[in-house]
């Protein structure tokens, strides 16, 4: 990867998002439009200035429409444009930024709009039931699995391998839900205590109710531009310095779940491109994917920001608070802001954009953060998608 020649440097020049809500009145198209409009307005751009559109959305079965990419097109500014949709499960949101990056870095387009949308409230009785076929139809579904099993099995292995007490993991949920109090789009931000989490209903041990991010509707959008165009539009472009993505085998029962090696592979790809040789020192803050509290820790280690098993200790020491040495999920993450699958990942890219420009308001990390990493994860514990940005 070092020695890779990118035709055009790519900057993020605008961003926007809707509220993340348990159930929105807006249709998916309307959600996509609201986020797109915000992003265009934030950069002072018109849709005519957008050369291409890259949209990400997770399974069609959530919104319950066939060919969701095409369905969302008109709300996402894709009318009569080169438009394409990507889908890699939970990794979609961050992957969308990579998908958009190709469009500009290749020199094919000068500007690209990236949109991510999810409307999970359409799926009944619960979006989880649309997920069931993630388990092998033949040799796993007959056992009557619930989606939570996947997380519980991974969490258990991680906890046992490093002897992590549940309290240290629950601390992540406390931090993120509190951070989200400062996020205008947050769905369920509230100051929960460690006791609240430890007393919440056990779903599939070690997973308890408050360990999990909520099902949501929402959309995000960002605008990408090549260097020449970006410098004409803004004094503070935020550069995408590195991208990485990597997947592991679907035979998840043959893998050791205590460490997401595919996240590390994706991180190395992105860090290499960005010229980062010591992530722990060179990354100022990070937005790893946190659909469950233990996932933030799992992914901190996957992102090579600390040693295996060290993430819970850093959390306990306050290192990952907004005013700590390595802030993690200053946005409030999925746990605090909400989890409309694809939009949640792109929300993290938006957070990097706002933080690196000093526009994160009450969430702003002190000092002068310059380099950050966002990461998403998905499928059957299979994909890591990583983006490194620099202000």
């Amino acid at each position, binding site marked *: 990867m070092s020695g890779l020649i990118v035709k055009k440097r790519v900057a993020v020049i605008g961003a926007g998002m809707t509220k993340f809500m348990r159930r*929105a009145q807006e249709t998916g198209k309307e959600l996509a439009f609201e986020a797109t409009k*915000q992003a265009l307005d934030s950069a002072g751009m018109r849709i005519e200035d957008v050369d291409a559109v890259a949209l990400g959305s997770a399974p069609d079965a959530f919104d*319950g429409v066939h060919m969701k990419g095409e369905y969302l097109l008109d709300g996402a500014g894709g009318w009569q444009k080169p438009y394409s949709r990507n889908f890699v499960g939970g990794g979609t949101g961050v992957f969308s930024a990579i998908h958009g990056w190709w469009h500009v870095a290749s020199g094919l387009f000068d500007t690209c709009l990236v949109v991510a949308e999810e409307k999970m409230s359409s799926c009944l009785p619960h979006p989880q039931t649309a997920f069931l076929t993630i388990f092998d139809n*033949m040799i796993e579904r007959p056992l009557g699995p619930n989606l939570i099993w996947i997380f519980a099995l991974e969490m258990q292995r991680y906890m046992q391998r490093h002897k992590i007490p549940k309290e240290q993991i629950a601390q992540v949920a406390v931090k993120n839900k509190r951070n989200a109090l400062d996020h205008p789009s947050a769905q369920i931000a509230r100051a929960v205590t460690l006791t609240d989490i430890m007393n919440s209903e056990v779903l599939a041990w070690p997973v308890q109710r408050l360990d999990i991010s909520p099902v949501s509707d929402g959309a995000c959008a960002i605008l990408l531009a090549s260097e020449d165009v970006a410098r004409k539009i803004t004094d503070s472009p935020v550069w995408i310095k590195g991208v990485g993505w990597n997947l592991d085998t679907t035979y998840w029962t043959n893998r050791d779940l205590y460490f997401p090696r595919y996240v590390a592979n994706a991180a190395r790809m992105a860090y290499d491109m960005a010229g980062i040789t010591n992530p722990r020192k060179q990354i100022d803050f990070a937005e790893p994917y946190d659909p469950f509290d233990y996932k933030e820790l799992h992914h901190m280690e996957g992102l090579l920001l600390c040693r295996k098993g060290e993430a819970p200790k850093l959390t306990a020491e306050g290192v990952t608070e907004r005013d700590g040495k390595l802030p993690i999920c200053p946005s409030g993450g999925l746990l605090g802001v909400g989890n409309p699958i694809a939009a949640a990942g792109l929300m993290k890219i938006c957070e990097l954009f706002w933080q690196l420009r000093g526009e994160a308001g009450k969430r702003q990390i002190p000092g002068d953060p310059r380099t950050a990493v966002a990461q998403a994860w998905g499928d059957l514990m299979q994909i890591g998608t990583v983006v490194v940005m620099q202000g």
Partner: protein
Amino acid sequence: MPFEPPGKALKEEEFDHNILTVSYQPKAKYAWATGVAIGRFLEGLKAGEILGTKCDHCGRIAVPPRVFCEWCFKRSGTWVQLPDTGTVNTFSVSYIATDTTRLKTPTIPAVIEIDTTGHAGLLHIIGEAKPEEVKIGMRVKAIWADPDKRKASITDIRYFRPIK
């Protein structure tokens, strides 16, 4: 970003009563072909055997069996019969059923590394064990359904029981 981002959040009662909605029940039924590898695997279960495949190139034994090794991308052409014992790699104590309703008695799903394969695991259930007894590293053995009750399904193994 604006102080008040767009979006009209609805409460559950509003979703049910106040706004206009359309309901739809898709009629999606499937008949999934088991394929070459799983077809044979299921036949093996009916006969009371756990079968795996050995990669012609790197020699690793895979269960669930597959016709190709995804590590070295070569054929896994040799079938082997495996012991029906193994070690618990990870487990959970689940109080929620597949339809998200609550269970009174928890189910204990686990990934069980089948003996002699290295670390190849199978997803199954642990039975005849109290939740607090289950540990990672615990040794377990398959308890099979009666031969005339087997259906060439993963449930031909009723559950794995701790070896005491």
